């Protein structure tokens, strides 16, 4: 390459990808409403989640796994999982998960790994994609590690995020 390049930016382009033509992209919707189920696996995750449950989501259900580290996944049926709606009323996993397109597990600590496994198992049997979101911060260290380890076996995508604002950013991006 020498210093004598022609001014390439002045060359013509075909019409198809100009700004003028981009205006003619059809305005009809190209997807139907998607339905997500978001599960907070511990207290901090629940607080972060409650901060956004009021937003105008499409078909999202927000659910909290009630603290219980002793859940034996093999011995726990979907309906037996201790689960609550944002207002504190009990929820039934078998009912909640019906019709879901995506399951998001949120953890900040690695607690309730057994419950995570039950949720992921039920999702798997229904061919629902499971994503894991580990909340970490600069000092989280081992906790973040535990959160990731608890979700890794079940999630087909895992995110380690440093701030809770990523939760609404992700749900918005996924049209939750």
């Amino acid at each position, binding site marked *: 390459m020498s210093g004598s390049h022609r001014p390439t930016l002045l060359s013509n382009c*075909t019409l198809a*990808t100009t700004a003028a033509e981009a205006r003619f992209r059809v305005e009809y919707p190209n997807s139907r409403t998607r339905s997500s189920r978001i599960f907070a696996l511990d207290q901090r995750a629940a607080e972060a989640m409650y901060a956004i449950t009021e937003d105008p989501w499409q078909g999202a259900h927000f659910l909290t796994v009630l603290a219980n580290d002793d859940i034996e996944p093999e011995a726990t049926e979907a309906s037996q999982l201790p689960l609550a709606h944002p207002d504190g009323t009990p929820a039934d996993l078998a009912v909640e998960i019906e019709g879901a397109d*995506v399951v998001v597990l949120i953890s900040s600590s690695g607690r309730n790994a057994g419950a995570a496994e039950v949720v992921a198992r039920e999702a798997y049997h229904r061919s629902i994609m499971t994503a894991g979101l580990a909340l970490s911060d600069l000092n989280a260290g081992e906790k973040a590690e535990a959160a990731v380890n608890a979700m890794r076996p079940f999630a087909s995508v895992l*995110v380690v995020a440093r701030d809770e604002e990523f939760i609404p950013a992700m749900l918005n991006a*996924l049209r939750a």
Partner: protein
Amino acid sequence: MLRKEVNELLTQTDPGTPMGALFRQYWIPALLASELPEDDCAPVRVKLLGERLIAFRDSDGRYGLMDEFCAHRGVSLWFGRNEESGLRCPYHGWKYDVNGQCTEVPSEPDASGFCEKIKLRAYPLIKIGDVLWTHMGGKENRPPEPVWEFATVAPEQTFTSKRWQECNWLQAMEGGIDSSHVSFLHSGGLNTDPLFRGAKGNQYNLADKKPVFEVTETEGGLFIGARRNAEEGRHYWRITPWIMPSFTMVPPRGDHPQHGHFWVPIDDENCWAWSYDYHPTRALTGAERQAMRDGHGIHNEYVPGTFRPLQNKDNDYMMDREAQKRGDTFSGIKGIAMQDASLQESMGPICDRTKENLVSTDNGIIMARHRLRKAVTALRDKGTLPPGRNPEHQKVRSVAAVLEADKNYVEACRDALTAAPGKQRTSV
């Protein structure tokens, strides 16, 4: 999906825009050093972040980058005479030094001091590696000089090219963190491209088309890990770093050189795709360098005498439907670089993200947008300087490794993900 306002926030980089302000906090690649090959050579027109500039190298080897147009009556200084330590406008002879300072106005008496009052906006232009870098922001926040490994290894270990891409910078960059397209769009190249073929890792790539992604936020940006099955329950990991605002590095294959990109906005509808290729511990071979020049790997062929790719939208990127049908290429387009560019340009000059339907495997892209948005608003609202300026953030390497199943990829590869002079790299 992104709301219209957010899409505009992230895609517009002209002066006065928030994203433009963000880009102006970094040293960015402006020209290849080879574009200004010698003292007093021809000046080069450069458009960056929506500003039309002229670059030149004066009689003393100093580089300058400044407003393209003469302060007198607005003639393009591309026509200028580059002589005697300055660039002289051919219309009435006004002359400027590399700092944009006017040093001569022939019509005025020398003693009048008039020329001191004339100064074109100018930016520093420094050579590091094969690249001339500029910082288009204020002096008060000038970051430390860039230390990217591809630009700081010995000259025989590195090769850099650039190509004009006819679309907004963000959709081009998003291709660099979109690891899930590789198994489809580029599937043909792993066995044939001289800069990829033969690596053991390729077998894992081709055998497991459903990788699991793990996206990890770091101080300077992100690590995007793609996990595939390897032997005996172990995992083959490919780890791509993204550093703010627009640097990515593809994981290496075998002993091939490793490569990656910088995306730099020209204006809102055009960007430069910079492509570097280097080996941290050995010289590139003659054959490798030749393959890069010939447009293999992530490089491309050009319309002669330009930085416009030979395959471009005027010729439908030389679409080969037969090759597509045979499966030689997945999209019918030849070469990794043009496979990416053709599809990214097809999205339109500025991708309309209100219409997209992202899925979980797009989380790398979702996170990168989130980080950019946070950094842009923190800079705009609080004056917070963004990540990625710190040289420590830039000392990063991509990694390909086979790990035991219970290993966290970031922890297991922490050292391998950090660049250091002469350090052996981790590749499969």
